């Protein structure tokens, strides 16, 4: 009987559980995606200048992603704390790192789908031109940024899961921490869009920052998630 149930098995089961719950309840698809689209439209109202919109489209996409991430994380942990399921997983001695990786993977899948939708919205609403040579940069940027955001979100979501005032504490804790992702992803995306004459080659150093960020918080989460949800 393996006492500390292995990380891989726990992560797979937790990720599958989270995604199945989402497919069954469709809360993220029916509420968070429309919310993100709405945010993009409201940016257009606020900025109200086509050249400006095209120029800053990269930043707006990632801002909409950040706001949606907060809601996705709150939903992800609401599912677990509703009937004491997170507590049950902890009480059952599941490897906390496995729970962390599992939940982060589920968030990643939802976040990537959301980002694809947002990029399509950017092309339509903000008249952004996607170029073939920028595509590779864009994909790597999206993957590494999404990984970083999911790890940070799951980490701070776990910390605030049980406590009172968690709705307001999560953004306060999380948003400053993801500042490098916002800066890096936006610069990389702008290079991919060649907005404001930014060359594609300028984007790669920023992808480096995103990869380091994702690695740091991936490892940080695996090591510390257990002690964060421990009573």
């Amino acid at each position, binding site marked *: *009987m*393996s*006492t*500390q*149930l292995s990380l891989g*098995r*726990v992560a*797979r*089961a937790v990720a599958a*559980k989270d995604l*199945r*719950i989402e497919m*069954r*309840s469709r809360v993220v698809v029916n509420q968070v995606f429309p919310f993100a689209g709405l945010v993009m439209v409201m940016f257009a109202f606020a900025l109200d200048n086509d050249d400006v919109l095209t120029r800053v489209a990269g930043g707006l996409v990632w801002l909409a992603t950040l706001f949606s991430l907060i809601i996705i994380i709150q939903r992800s942990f609401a*599912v677990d704390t*509703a*009937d*004491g*399921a997170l*507590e*049950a*997983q*902890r*009480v*059952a*001695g*599941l490897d906390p790192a496995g729970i962390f990786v599992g939940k982060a993977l589920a968030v990643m899948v939802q976040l990537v789908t959301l980002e694809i939708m947002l990029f399509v919205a950017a092309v339509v609403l903000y008249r952004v031109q996607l170029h073939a040579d920028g595509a590779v940069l864009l994909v790597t940027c999206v993957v590494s940024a999404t990984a970083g955001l999911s790890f940070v979100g799951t980490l701070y979501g776990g910390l605030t899961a049980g406590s009172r005032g968690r709705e307001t504490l999560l953004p306060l804790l999380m948003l400053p921490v993801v500042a490098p992702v916002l800066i890096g992803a936006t610069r990389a995306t702008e290079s991919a869009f060649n907005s404001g004459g930014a060359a594609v080659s300028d984007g790669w150093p920023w992808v480096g920052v995103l990869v380091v960020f994702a690695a740091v918080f991936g490892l940080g989460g695996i090591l510390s998630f257990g002690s964060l949800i421990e*009573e």
Partner: protein
Amino acid sequence: MSIVVDFREAVVVFNGFPALAEASIEVQRGEIVLLQGPNGAGKTTLLRACAGLLPIVRGEASVLGVDLCIDRQSVRSRVGLLGHANGLFADLTIGENVSFWAQMVGAKVAEVASTLQRFGIDGRLAEQKVMQLSAGQKRRCALACLVVRRAELWLLDEPHAGLDATARDEIDAIIREACTAGATVLIASHELERARGLATRSVSVVAGRVVS
């Protein structure tokens, strides 16, 4: 190794308040011990302490041979704690909930099917979402998760709360069957006449102390 729970004057503290004030208790394998006593006396705290969730501030405490003062993690996978919350995923069906826990210990699909069948929550019912179930069915599903997870020590906090008579009989049958299969059970309950029929022994918990 027949002693499953061995507490000697264990103290557990919540913000300065001694929820367990030098509690001592010894439980053998296969026993069904009833913990009775007034609310706030420390019954729930004792169960949570046995599950390795609470730091032992003073005294000694060991469960299934593991000293809780040193390591409160490794014993958890062999212990099942069922409180007022069932720990289920409302959006998933009974089958999906039970197989989530089965995956954790690598139990085979056949084992899941036989457990569901024994608990009377198989067939069409297994496809029902947990949110649509009655309290009794949810409680049976939660117990099925314990069985599938092969918990050796069951810690049940008011297992009969909110159940009608038939549902309570089913829960008692499940608990008896688990004991014959080698599990040990601690029940904290107010349903004294029902629980006494079920329990092999009963102790009272008063003001954070166990009085047998």
